[in-house]
């Protein structure tokens, strides 16, 4: 009974992506779209091999992953700290929220010039742009998560004489973890969104930079190959987060 269900699950898991690729190939082969503007999987696969074998893929990956990782970590850590503060203290919330709410929707691509002015063309500016998107996403999740920590647990902690510090790090933080992890997982895709802006600002390598270049050169096959790499990185990152969060958040509310 059980192993059968598991088998069906496996089939479901491994069938959807191939199915997508199949439909895609059929659509393009049947001439429903222009195969140069939207090339079939076979062409993309060739472009992918070309991309990988030229060594460019590894270079691009190296740069992009380092930008994403650094910007992401900086954004996530600061967001957790400030989110704990604003979530747990209404003065801090009153002070920071209006500014954050104003800045939050600003698309990083809109202030690439300003970032160049401020940070020059160093990697710093690129990290900052990734940081931007990640920070606000995670901040919101921590801020709201802290506010939904079980009241009884907060009361218990106060009766037990918890200091501000213990309250934040041993009660609010773990209590908000389910929300924080959701924010962290959402921020994975946001960080890739912002990578596009980051690699507009004077990059010479990177997945998003390559996207832009191949788009300009109408090498759509290469472009889609780049997108697939993004998808793979993010899938792996999310899987890791999922496993980690299941381990850390072992309780059920």
């Amino acid at each position, binding site marked *: 009974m059980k192993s059968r269900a598991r088998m069906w699950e496996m089939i479901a898991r491994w069938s959807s992506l191939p199915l997508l690729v199949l439909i895609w190939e059929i659509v393009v082969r049947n001439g429903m779209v222009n195969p140069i503007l939207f090339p079939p999987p076979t062409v993309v696969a060739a472009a992918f091999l070309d991309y990988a074998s030229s060594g460019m893929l590894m270079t691009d990956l190296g740069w992009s992953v380092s930008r994403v990782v650094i910007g992401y970590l900086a954004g996530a850590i600061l967001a957790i700290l400030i989110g704990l503060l604003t979530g747990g203290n209404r003065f801090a919330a009153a002070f920071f929220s209006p500014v954050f709410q104003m800045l939050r929707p600003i698309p990083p691509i809109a202030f690439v010039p300003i970032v160049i002015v401020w940070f*020059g063309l160093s990697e710093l500016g690129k990290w900052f742009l990734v940081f931007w998107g990640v920070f606000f996403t995670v901040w919101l999740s921590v801020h709201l998560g802290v506010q939904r920590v079980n009241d009884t647990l907060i009361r218990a902690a106060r009766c037990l004489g918890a200091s501000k510090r213990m309250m934040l790090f041993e009660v609010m933080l773990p209590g908000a973890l389910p929300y924080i992890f959701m924010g962290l997982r959402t921020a994975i895709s946001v960080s890739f969104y912002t990578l596009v802006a980051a690699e507009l600002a004077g990059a010479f390598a990177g997945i998003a930079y390559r996207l832009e270049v191949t788009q300009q050169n*109408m090498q759509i096959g290469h472009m889609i190959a780049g997108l697939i790499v993004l998808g793979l990185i993010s899938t792996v990152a999310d899987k890791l987060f999922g496993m980690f969060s299941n381990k850390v958040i072992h309780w059920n509310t």
Partner: protein
Amino acid sequence: EEMQKVKLAQNLSPISGVTIIAKNKNFFEKAGLDVQVVNFTSGKQALEATLGGGTDIATTAEAPVTAAAMAKQPIAFIARMEYSDLKTLASVSSGIRTLSDIKGKRIGMTVGTGGEVYTMALLERAGLTKKDVSIVSLRPQDMAAGISANGIDMMNTWEPYISTAKKALGTQVRQLETKGVYAETFNIVTTQTYLKSNRELMTKFVKAMIDAEKWMKDNPEEAITIVAKTVGMNRDDLAPIWSEYNFKVVLDDMTVSVLKAHAAWRLESGNAPTGAVMPDFSKVIFPDLLKGVAADRVTIKSY
């Protein structure tokens, strides 16, 4: 002798051919310059990076130059290094054969760029105004898709997008005869402060560019190979359109007239900073440097 360091903000595209060659064939190095190239996907960003102090010299088209001049930015226009005609592709199904057929059609172009000035010039030539057509703003790389999806009837833009679109759409499009209507220029620009304190360096820079330009004339096949590789194009895509790019490091009347035409369009269309007036381009163009290197290349008669 110690190499002098300089940062060049370069739009990574065949239009930057001269600087690409100067860097790749070591003309900068031979002139005693250590040029660090920072690539951008548009000339506008390259110029902004230079204005903001991130880089020293920019390669850029006329549109960012007029915008900066009107915003009273202290820029120094050193030389034009390339120009190429803007072109028009029309979809066959739209029935457009000549300029006289474009009334009521949907035209794709990129707002704020030379492409918009070109479009206005085309309309004028066809005896039409903006109201007679519908204009759709698109990035050059999106225009072929726009025609393919029947979202626009024609596209006005520059190379290499015209040739890539032709390749993608084949017999679905035809090119209209629009030679000489408007040419997009690509130029070397720095800031006045940088120029003032680095005259000797800039002289070497211009010299290296002229050397590169000459080498390109003599070795076109190798030049194509290098440029294609640098910008990430297929060599086979670049070779047929190579002749469309006019690489020449000069300051001529066409340079001024393109700037003026673009500035005039800005004022007319309101695409200018508040309170802007027609800039005095004699305060923007700094011909002495090029004159000092090759006097015959400066032929501006009036501003």
